[in-house]
């Protein structure tokens, strides 16, 4: 009884939550509403890649390709429906959006199967390049296909999909989380930890890898379909390699294998560049100076972290020295910049600066917390949250 209550309760809460977020989005401005939708999509993307990458240990760095497959599937479906007069270009009924989501999930899942099957025999980095290559091949095919809008892009009818975006995100989280709770899920972890050993223990490594790949890709595809109908227009530039890298970064930064980590990192990394839009303009010499200073400081802290065996006094002295070097370096660089005519007295607006800060934050985070925000662990309030499954 209680089991069922928990189950139904959680589904109910998720649906209610998704629609609550939808209401929130509807009642806020366009900007916020879109950001809420995109944030949900990134959560789905990060959690689904986490299944492939963090939980099963398959090194995929081309997740945006599956996102793209789903997105274009939905766009193509919509264009066909419009051509047949079933829907108009002015708005997409939600029932059709859901059909599109399923179609997108299936096609992206098939793409995952298509890529996953042959890539099974490949070890980490080889798989990585194949997934990356798949994205590039896809881009070139789409560019040369007029039915898909070529390099310009393709229009689709819009719909208000925010609740469904978050429903998908919750579903994705639930599937991954529940997978880990079952014996089945343990096999995924075992493949991550040691392929050979888990194979020897009777785990069908191939099947697990493909399953992870297909499920992860299908979720990315579904997210793509929602992107299509949220934006009303997509083109290949929305799915470039750097989008893949960002998704991968979300997974690693959150802590590979940690679902909550992926969620938190996805939200953080998605929101950071948006917040930085409001950052003040800064003089170039201050930027360069602080970059150098921070780099030196991070280096020193890293050094301290790696040499815990040293005595406290030695460490202290080193830290102070390092701090001095960092501050000194920062000052030297900021003053030095003014002696380069092309760089002197330049002020950089936040719009040009935000990606620099973003990448700097990324490097610093990785250096200071290489295991990710949560490591392999899950985050919960106190002990309420169930502990991670031990591999």
């Amino acid at each position: 009884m209680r089991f069922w209550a928990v189950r139904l309760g959680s589904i109910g809460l998720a649906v209610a939550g998704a629609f609550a977020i939808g209401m929130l989005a509807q009642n806020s401005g366009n900007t916020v509403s879109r950001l809420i939708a995109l944030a949900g999509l990134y959560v789905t993307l990060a959690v689904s890649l986490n299944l492939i990458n963090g939980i099963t240990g398959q090194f995929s760095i081309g997740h945006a390709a599956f996102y793209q497959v789903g997105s274009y599937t939905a766009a193509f479906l919509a264009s066909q429906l419009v051509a047949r007069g079933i829907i108009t270009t002015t708005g997409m009924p939600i029932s059709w959006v859901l059909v599109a989501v399923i179609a997108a999930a299936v096609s992206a899942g098939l793409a995952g199967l298509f890529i996953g099957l042959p890539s099974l025999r490949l070890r980490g980095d080889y798989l990585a390049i194949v997934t990356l290559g798949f994205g590039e091949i896809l881009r070139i095919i789409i560019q040369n296909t007029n039915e898909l809008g070529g390099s310009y892009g393709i229009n689709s009818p819009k719909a208000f999909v925010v609740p469904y975006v978050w429903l998908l995100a919750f579903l994705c989280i639930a599937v991954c989380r529940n997978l880990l709770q079952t014996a089945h899920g343990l096999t995924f972890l075992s493949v991550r930890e040691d392929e050979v050993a888990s194979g020897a223990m009777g785990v069908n490594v191939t099947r697990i890898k493909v399953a992870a790949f297909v499920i992860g890709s299908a979720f990315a595809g579904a997210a793509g379909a929602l992107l299509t109908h949220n934006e009303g227009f997509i083109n290949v530039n929305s799915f470039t390699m750097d989008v893949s890298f960002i998704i991968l970064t979300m997974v690693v930064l959150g802590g590979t294998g940690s679902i909550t980590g992926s969620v938190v990192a996805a939200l953080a990394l998605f929101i950071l560049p948006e917040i930085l839009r409001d950052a003040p303009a800064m003089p170039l010499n201050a930027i360069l100076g602080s970059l150098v200073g921070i780099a030196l400081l991070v280096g020193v802290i890293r050094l301290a972290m790696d040499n815990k065996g040293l005595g406290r006094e030695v460490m202290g002295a080193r830290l102070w020295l390092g701090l001095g070097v960092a501050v000194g370096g920062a000052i030297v660089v900021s003053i030095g910049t003014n002696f380069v005519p092309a760089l002197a007295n330049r002020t950089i607006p936040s719009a040009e600066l935000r990606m620099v800060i973003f990448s700097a934050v990324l490097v610093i985070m990785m250096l200071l917390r290489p295991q990710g925000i949560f490591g392999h662990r899950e985050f919960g309030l106190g002990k309420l949250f169930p502990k991670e499954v031990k591999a």
Partner: protein
Amino acid sequence: MKNKIGVFLTLALAGSLLIGCNSSSSSTNTTPSDTDKPTTTTTAGGKRPAPTAAGPKIEGPTVKIGLVASLNGELKPWGDDSKNGAELAIEELNKSGGIDGKQYELITEDSNSKPEQGKTAADRLIGKGVVGIVGEVASGITAQIADSAFAAGVPVVAVGATKTTLTDIGSNVFRVCYTDDFQGPVMARFAYEELRLKRIAVMTDNKQPYSQGLSESFKAKFKALGGEIIAEEFYNSGDQQFNAQLTNVKGKNPDALFLSGYFTEVGLIARQARDVGLSVKLLGGDGWDSEELVSGGGEGIVGGYFCNHYNNQEDRPEVKSFLEKWKAKFAGKLPGTTMGALGYDSVMLMADAIKRAETKDAKGIIAALDNTENFPSVSGAITLKGKGGNPPKRALVVEVTKTGQVFRKAYEYFE
């Protein structure tokens, strides 16, 4: 199971679903629900639907104009120039007293060369209360901006987006540049009628909608005139080596080579064409326009012809004063690309419409933009009245010489 109940109370949404079991949660979104909430209320039918939203009013201490530009990513060179041009225009407008005692304020947002970020940028500008948006350079990003602006009833003046169907998004969308449907035919006529070239090979940048559109319109007109397109080769912006394509072209013995891409690759192609011994005339569109064209293309590009909006050596007062102002602001440099002038023109056109607007709100500005007649801009007179957002503009054919571009022949607008 006991402690799991507590999770519901403490963790809200995400955590809650995590407590289910494997089979329980897979059916959540398969049942279609009918909570369809339409957001856009576009009026279907007419070619250019009118926005239904009321749009912002001109109020507050400053008149805010928004600019979306690619300040990061691969379109940065054009984004930077459009930003510089827009800033120059705002500075000038404010120096001459602003409008009704108010100053203009330019709010710039980055599109990061990506359509969806362009949309975020436009949304943010709308949220900040701009009365008009200027931008973008790329058609794909502009389409996204136009879409957001349409929903909010805000006028858009596109800087360099030449995709022909772009202005069909709504009656709030205008541009200061000509469309792909014009400059391609201009070059086709110039090649066929003036240079009497009969057999032309085309090289298209497959990554740029601009280049694809231009190649299409050029090919169509050139064939209609009686010429022959003997080969079409493709490349992607960012490619560095074109020997293979050029060797192919050389094997076909064309009279000329039409390069519809941007100067970044055109320069390389021109250099390498000379290297492989292909010494035919090169022709192209306004994407060639840059101070870097000759230094990038070297001797290979000299003698080529391309279609441009205006020319730095033109005598028109608009051009002269624009270049003087530009040089004064940017340490004696000339604009790197045409987007400098077009960004400037876009802001000037927007400001002019704001001044002429009968009602001081977005609707008034859109009406004023739509009524523009013979607005003297750097890139030639702009008339938007009855033109559906696409100004019929004149185009210049200029020749590339070692010392710069030399004006050769002007084409007034033709269908």
